[in-house]
């Protein structure tokens, strides 16, 4: 059964025809060619498919495309205009929190989601947002460093805004 859906993806309105059984992940990757979100397991266990839907971090492999009708979707490709990167991406590069890179978009989106949702997120909040993300390469030390950097930045901002 084919459904017509209209959704905003990275700021651009899209109209698509999807099968009921299509996951949002498949549609983003194969119909819209936004291949930044990855398929690591297909059952929501690894986090590599994480995107923002209506400002919440969700696992695109566990969402049917039809459920995204009317939704506002942000993928890793839509985090920043070309030529720019976000604080999260910068922190990951500087901490060398990227090895094979397959899990990286998921980690970045999870942190972006949490920081947008909660501008006063603490280190614990950020780590909680990453609780279900698997990385097989880094051993997490560098990811923890990147997260600590972001937490410090947020804390400084919170301090400044309180003054």
């Amino acid at each position: 059964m084919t459904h017509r859906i209209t959704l905003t993806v990275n700021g651009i309105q899209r109209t698509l025809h999807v099968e009921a059984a299509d996951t949002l992940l498949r549609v983003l990757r194969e119909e819209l060619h936004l291949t930044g979100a990855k398929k690591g397991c297909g059952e929501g266990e690894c986090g590599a498919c994480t995107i923002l839907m209506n400002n919440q971090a969700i696992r695109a492999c566990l969402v049917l495309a039809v459920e995204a009708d009317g939704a506002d979707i942000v993928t890793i490709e839509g985090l920043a205009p070309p030529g720019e990167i976000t604080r999260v991406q910068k922190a990951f590069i500087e901490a060398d929190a990227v090895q094979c890179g397959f899990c990286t978009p998921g980690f970045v989106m999870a942190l972006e989601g949490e920081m947008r949702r909660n501008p006063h997120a603490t280190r614990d909040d950020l780590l909680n947002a990453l609780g279900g993300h698997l990385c097989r390469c880094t051993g997490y030390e560098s990811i923890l460093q990147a997260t600590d950097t972001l937490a410090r930045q947020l804390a400084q901002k919170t301090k400044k805004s309180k003054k």
Partner: protein
Amino acid sequence: MNLEYCKPQTLEDLLAETRAGTHLMAGGTDLLVDMRSRKKTVQRIVDIKAIPELRGIRETKSGLEIGACETFTALRESPLVAAWSPALRECADVMGCHEIRHRATLGGNICNSSPGCESGVVLSVHEAQVRIASTRGVRLVPFDTFATGVNRTCLEPDEVVLSIILPKAADSLSFYRRITRTAGMDLACWNGAALVLQPRTPAKRVVRISFGTVMPAPYRPRAAEALLSRRPLTPADMDQAYDLIIREIAPRAGSVRASPAEKKRAIRNFLDELLERLAP
């Protein structure tokens, strides 16, 4: 292969769509996994996320009513849940992971009815009521009657869970524990919850405990509860309670998640913690 999908906008429409051969979908975090593994053959999905009657966390005269479509994130962040049931808050904190919690719902969790589902043991000790609707009307079912076995509930094919009601338990303490294989995302390989009414008055104290993964549905060991209620407690009492429980439960050998020995040890430690919390 030709999967059907619809998303009714009113409760009336939803009830009209609910029938045998239909799979209701809230967060989809169990349904899509079961479709993938072919545990379920799904031909027709009815998305229930647009129904207003399935939302809301509010205090009513019956108790704390939680809409079936409330997510685990909503449970975690609700001051009402925190006040009414620390145990429910605790299980919501650890269920799945961040992204899963944004989608997974309390209704979905109990309808999937896994023996180790996170909320089952908590609703069990609260003696929660499950509010169920169909075209024939609305009925209330105690949670322990609702969950009937492994992935089984008392729901008829045309019924929908509207909400879950936690009865008032003003003077109480509750907690939730589980064991897992990793500190990251994991199912509960064993879990347990306790609700103690009037915890500081041993003579009036009522102890309720419920364990998951040791029987087909969350299990209340009544004999042990009777032993532990209405009296001050000693370590010897906990030993006795433990023996009573062990005799009644039947954890499956050969589970890939936790062995019977690990589950028994967890029960033992749970009872020790209960004693610690109740000790004057």
